[in-house]
């Protein structure tokens, strides 16, 4: 099942009746479908979800996540069975610095390649988290000499 976000059909209802053609409604419907499908990627901070990028080079996989307003202590990273999970708490403070609201953020990213889990490192700078995931060395073919009795 897919969930389609409801958007009030203002284009179709407000268009004057005389200029309406059977295509106009279809066109706005198509636009609406594109907006619901692609809209979220354009907004930098979507509630409870944050944008992530996945990169690779020959040695590592890299995950970059936009987490503005968080501190290092608010972020928790876990690697379980090929999935990297990033949890974070965005604290909303009032004028005195008192925490009035905590918003929990979470994302899981499937890492396509085998990773050396205990060598994962992470850096956090200017609200961007960069996780470096070293690729596992390919099992090298071993040469075994067998003595003949």
């Amino acid at each position: 099942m897919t969930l389609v976000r409801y958007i009030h059909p203002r284009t179709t209802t407000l268009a004057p009746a005389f200029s309406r053609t059977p295509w106009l409604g279809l066109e706005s419907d198509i636009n609406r479908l594109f907006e619901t499908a692609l809209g979220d990627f354009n907004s930098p901070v979507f509630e409870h979800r944050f944008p992530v990028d996945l990169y690779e080079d020959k040695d590592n996989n890299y995950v970059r996540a936009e987490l503005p307003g968080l501190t290092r202590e608010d972020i928790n990273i876990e690697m379980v069975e090929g999935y990297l999970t990033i949890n974070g708490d965005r604290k909303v403070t009032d004028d005195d610095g008192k925490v009035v609201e905590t918003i929990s953020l979470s994302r899981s990213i499937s890492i396509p390649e085998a990773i050396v889990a205990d060598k994962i490192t992470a850096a956090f700078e200017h609200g961007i988290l960069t996780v470096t995931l070293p690729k596992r060395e390919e099992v090298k073919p071993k040469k075994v000499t067998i003595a003949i009795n």
Partner: protein
Amino acid sequence: MTFLQSIVPGLSRPAQPAKVETDSKLRPVLNLREDEHGYNLTVFLPGVPKENLEITDHDGRLTIAGRRAWTQPKEWTALYRETSRANFELVLHHEGDIDVEKINAELKDGRLHLMLPKAEAVKPRKIAIN
């Protein structure tokens, strides 16, 4: 052709040039709160260091422009991307009701806090009766 255009209005529309991401500006997510002293503005600017942030006020237009510091290294291949590379720009209009000289800005971990104090002239005032 004209008949086709009359039933499909999109056909008569001029073709739009493809959007170039590096030139386009992204309006950052913000939070604005008002109290009796002024306005508390929180702007999320991920990836923008202090030296790449410019806040200007001109003719009642408060402009916040932030450039992202990071560029993708040559060896890196993107497998999956959700973030935008566009720089941030936010323009807020005010009608001189802000004391521009006393604006206080603080940027930490990609979150900008701006305290915009209200000008003395617009603050509520008690008038003494003789």
